[in-house]
């Protein structure tokens, strides 16, 4: 070991507290970088592989019903490589406890080989191709788990007015079911009450009473095919069969949610770690600058002995490099562990076959390169001052650091009110502007992290509160298998428990404006409804129009529609002929979730050429949950789903509970970061002012007064950092929300005042703790020694 290496080790040892604090920051950065990037790469790879192996459809077309022969015609369209026709329909499941759930009954043509959007068997066995004997079905793993369905158990469906009993033979998933959600208005998956039931095509057609018919066409396009043109041609073929909807892969809900999750991970992987690296670079720069200043004399001696600048600079830079290498090594180990944990959890959550394990080597290499770059850059930058040290000069006593007037002294009314200790602190801050700025920015980042960690739960809580307390004021929503005359359900109002009942009619439709067309779900309601109110994502109320259409901003933006425009509405309900009407857009609504387009109940009926029909009813009961009422609905075949607001809230509370762990981890990261920053700043201030502080002790200042002086300076920086961090945290949250929001889901950047208080409170704690760690040194301050030695 060379003498210089030994000297480096001793320097590290004598500054071990600061070295450790820096290592913690780099470790956290690398941990986040490797953890998030590896998770992203693995999930992304897993997604791509899964999509490719199971030939995920590029485009999906929904029709009312069409003969299977249409598939060959679609396949003949230039640009189409393969088309698969299948039947898919939501039907009620009657569970063993008589409760209702919804099955998305999906038929598969056998053999599966070569078909588009194939299945992936997870457990059990494949269903038999023939339709003799008991009908075997596969269910999605979440539904199977939530309802304790194992191979051999039976499920009972109601389809085409009849009950059908099916035997579960295993669990399976498909590329479009990685995140099974019932519809755009669902806030989260509810595996107890919604599942995918996969079955051979012929049996599905038999159960649904649609032999030889399909209602969905899944299309695999040739690479580089003109999507718009192909879509147009296929829609022309399907037109006679009632083309309800057509959407590309990126609009498919399961894919959109998985993709937005992946995008979110990527954004975090590419931003958060770099905050840690930048802070590490800034603090390293300051520490090294101070070290070099304090080693002016030894550096002068080394130069006098004949060491050249490059050698000495390399020696100083290697301190930063050592921090980087130790941090990167620790962070890599922890990051690989975090990635394994996260990607397995997410793969499970998304029904993806387990993401391939192991280490993503490029990510590890990048993290070592980035951290080394951070160490070397800050080291070289700081050690530039070595160039200015002349041997002879370095061995003389240096002049006192130059005190300077601060701009604050231009305000005598303020300056004259300050005592000497405040004047000292303020001048010291103005003298060490770089350190001041780095500390303020670093504290700000820690606070941003704190706010960021907590804000998503605020935004979700806001959404839920809005959703259940202001928007959906009903206790139950009862949905029907097909629209019914609401005079038939009005008798429910005579039930003792029912306080109020309101009908609702949802009309799936194509909204057309000029040359453009978009699929939408128009919700028809009484404008004077008391059980459902319309609020946009900013909490502004909207009136349901008696005439005309309140259009969702998502559709309005895509079509280029403004309030006052006339649009053409073509119904795409799978029953009866499609009808076309013209509606005036009376307003634009930007909802948090779901469709967001509203019309009056009367208009909805007019669109369908009906009178007084409803697809669902909303009910307010004496109590939020009444089993006696639920039991009565369970007896009714036309009831497809019973949705209890109280139950949904409970499910959501459970989901939020599981998010708490990740919030906790983020808060821990922020606290560690903050602690490392404050400890370093306080130690540096202490080291630099040791002599001054000793003089004050000699003058008669007590330990507490001297410690107070140190605290004062740190608090000034910390308070400014906290004050900047709170709004910056909100801005970061808003930016994240904007980049992660989807057509289905767009959360406002809502942060409750409570969160700011908690974030500030946590920041106060880490500032206090960091100072306490450093201030212990005041007790060890040796007045005699400090005053004897000249730096």
């Amino acid at each position: 070991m060379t003498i210089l290496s030994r000297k480096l080790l001793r320097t590290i040892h004598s500054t071990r507290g600061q070295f450790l604090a820096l290592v913690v920051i780099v470790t956290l950065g690398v941990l986040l970088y490797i953890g998030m990037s590896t998770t992203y790469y693995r999930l992304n790879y897993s997604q791509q592989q899964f999509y490719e192996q199971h030939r995920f459809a590029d485009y999906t077309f929904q029709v009312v019903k069409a003969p299977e022969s249409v598939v060959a015609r679609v396949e003949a369209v230039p640009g189409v490589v393969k088309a698969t026709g299948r039947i898919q329909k939501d039907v009620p499941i009657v569970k063993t406890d008589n409760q209702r759930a919804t099955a998305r009954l999906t038929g598969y043509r056998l053999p599966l080989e070569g078909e588009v959007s194939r299945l992936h068997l997870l457990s059990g066995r494949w269903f038999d191709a023939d339709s003799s004997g008991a009908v075997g079905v596969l269910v999605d793993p979440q539904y199977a788990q939530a309802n304790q369905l194992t191979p051999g158990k039976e499920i009972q469906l109601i389809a085409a007015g009849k009950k059908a009993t099916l035997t579960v033979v295993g669990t399976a998933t498909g590329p479009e079911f990685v995140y099974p959600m019932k519809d755009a208005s669902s806030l989260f998956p509810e595996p107890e009450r919604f599942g995918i039931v996969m079955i051979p095509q012929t049996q599905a057609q038999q159960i649904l009473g649609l032999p030889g018919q399909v209602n969905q066409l899944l299309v695999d396009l040739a690479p580089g095919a003109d999507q718009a043109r192909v879509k147009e041609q296929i829609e022309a073929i399907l037109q006679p069969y009632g083309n309800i909807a057509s959407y590309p892969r990126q609009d498919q809900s399961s894919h959109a949610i998985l993709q937005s999750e992946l995008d979110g991970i990527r954004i975090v992987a590419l931003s958060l770690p770099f905050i840690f690296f930048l802070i590490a670079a800034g603090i390293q720069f300051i520490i090294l600058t101070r070290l070099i200043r304090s080693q002016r004399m030894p550096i002068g001696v080394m130069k006098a002995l004949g060491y050249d600048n490059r050698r000495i600079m390399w020696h100083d830079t290697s301190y930063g490099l050592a921090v980087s290498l130790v941090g990167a090594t620790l962070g890599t180990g922890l990051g690989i562990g975090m990635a394994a944990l996260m990607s397995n959890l997410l793969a499970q959550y998304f029904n993806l076959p387990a993401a391939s394990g192991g280490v993503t080597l490029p990510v590890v290499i990048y993290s070592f390169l980035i951290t080394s770059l951070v160490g070397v850059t800050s080291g070289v930058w700081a050690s530039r001052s070595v160039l200015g040290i002349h041997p002879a000069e370095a061995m003389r006593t240096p002049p006192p650091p130059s005190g300077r007037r601060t701009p604050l002294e231009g305000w005598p009314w303020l300056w004259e009110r300050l005592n000497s200790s405040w004047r000292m602190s303020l001048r010291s801050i103005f003298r060490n502007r770089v350190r001041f700025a780095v500390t303020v920015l670093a504290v700000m980042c820690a606070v941003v992290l704190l706010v960021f960690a907590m804000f998503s739960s605020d935004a979700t809580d806001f959404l839920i509160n809005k959703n259940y307390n202001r928007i959906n004021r009903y206790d139950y929503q009862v949905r029907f298998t097909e629209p019914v005359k609401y005079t038939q359900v009005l008798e429910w109002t005579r039930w003792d428990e029912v306080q109020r009942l309101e009908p609702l009619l949802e009309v799936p439709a194509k909204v057309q404006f000029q040359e453009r067309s978009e699929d939408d779900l128009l919700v028809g309601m009484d404008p004077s409804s008391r059980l459902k109110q319309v609020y946009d994502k900013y909490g502004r109320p909207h009136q349901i129009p008696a005439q005309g259409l309140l259009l969702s901003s998502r559709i309005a933006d895509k079509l280029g529609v403004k309030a006052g425009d006339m649009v053409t509405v073509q119904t795409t309900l799978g029953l009866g002929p499609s009808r076309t009407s013209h509606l005036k857009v009376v307003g634009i609504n930007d909802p948090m979730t779901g469709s967001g387009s509203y019309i009056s109940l009367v208009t909805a009926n007019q669109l369908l050429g009906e009178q007084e029909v409803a697809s669902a009813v909303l009910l307010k009961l004496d109590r939020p949950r009444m089993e006696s009422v639920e039991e009565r609905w369970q007896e009714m075949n036309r009831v497809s789903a019973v949705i209890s607001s109280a139950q949904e809230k409970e499910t959501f509370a459970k989901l939020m509970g599981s998010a708490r762990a990740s919030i906790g981890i983020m808060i821990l990261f922020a606290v560690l970061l903050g602690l490392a920053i404050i400890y370093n700043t306080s130690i540096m201030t202490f080291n630099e002012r040791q002599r001054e502080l000793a003089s004050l002790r000699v003058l008669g200042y007590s330990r507490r007064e001297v410690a107070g002086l140190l605290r004062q300076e740190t608090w000034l920086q910390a308070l400014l950092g906290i004050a900047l961090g709170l709004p910056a945290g909100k801005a970061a949250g808003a930016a994240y929300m904007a980049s992660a929001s989807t057509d289905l889901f767009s959360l406002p950047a809502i942060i409750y005042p409570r969160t700011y208080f908690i974030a500030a409170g946590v920041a106060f704690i880490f500032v206090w703790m960091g100072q306490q760690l450093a201030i212990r040194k005041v007790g060890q301050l040796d007045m005699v020694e400090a005053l004897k030695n000249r730096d």
Partner: protein
Amino acid sequence: MGYIEMKHSFKSYKMGDSLIEANKDITFSVEKGELAIILGSSGAGKSTVLNILGGMDTNDKGDVIIDGRNIAGASAHELTKYRRLDVGFVFQFYNLIPDLTAAENVALAAELAADPLPVDEVLQDVGLWERRDHFPAQLSGGEQQRVAIARALVKHPRLLLCDEPTGALDYETGKSVLRLLCDIREKHFSTVIIVTHNTAIGDMADRVVRMRSGEVAEMLVNDCPLPPERIDW
């Protein structure tokens, strides 16, 4: 009984594995209002004596009586109070606060004292009133030492302790600082103790304590102290 009495005082330090006996059975006394010089070469233990007298350090054994009160064995809190109210310190390297102007450095000490002298008056006494708004970096060595003396003086201490006050100064400036110390003693009736290795300074003292290898080698009372202008080195 003397105003200051150090009796059989011992002090040793651990330096690695070896024990350094800095003070061995030190006994001497100084009367109120005297200018005493503790003389000795480097390592004689004179600064240790001064640090113990100033309450910056404590002895291992023996008594340190200041104006009838024994500070040996006083608590850290009591020593802080003692430094705050009774003692003024002047160091070889001034130890001014770089972020405070000359006047502010003096005011810093004044803020602590029960009955401080007016800052401007003290600055006038040390001849630095015109330079009161300058920062230490803008002052010469002699000027910085004058500020340090003013800082020690403003508390109106009963005891002024100076550790090699001329050690970092040139001949002329050194002499002017000594003149200042004499004037202060006369004006404020303080007891002044100066530690130095410069034997010539001994001629201006009322009392000289000569130290060698941690012990008092000799104690002299000088009936005819010379003014600083007449001493030479």
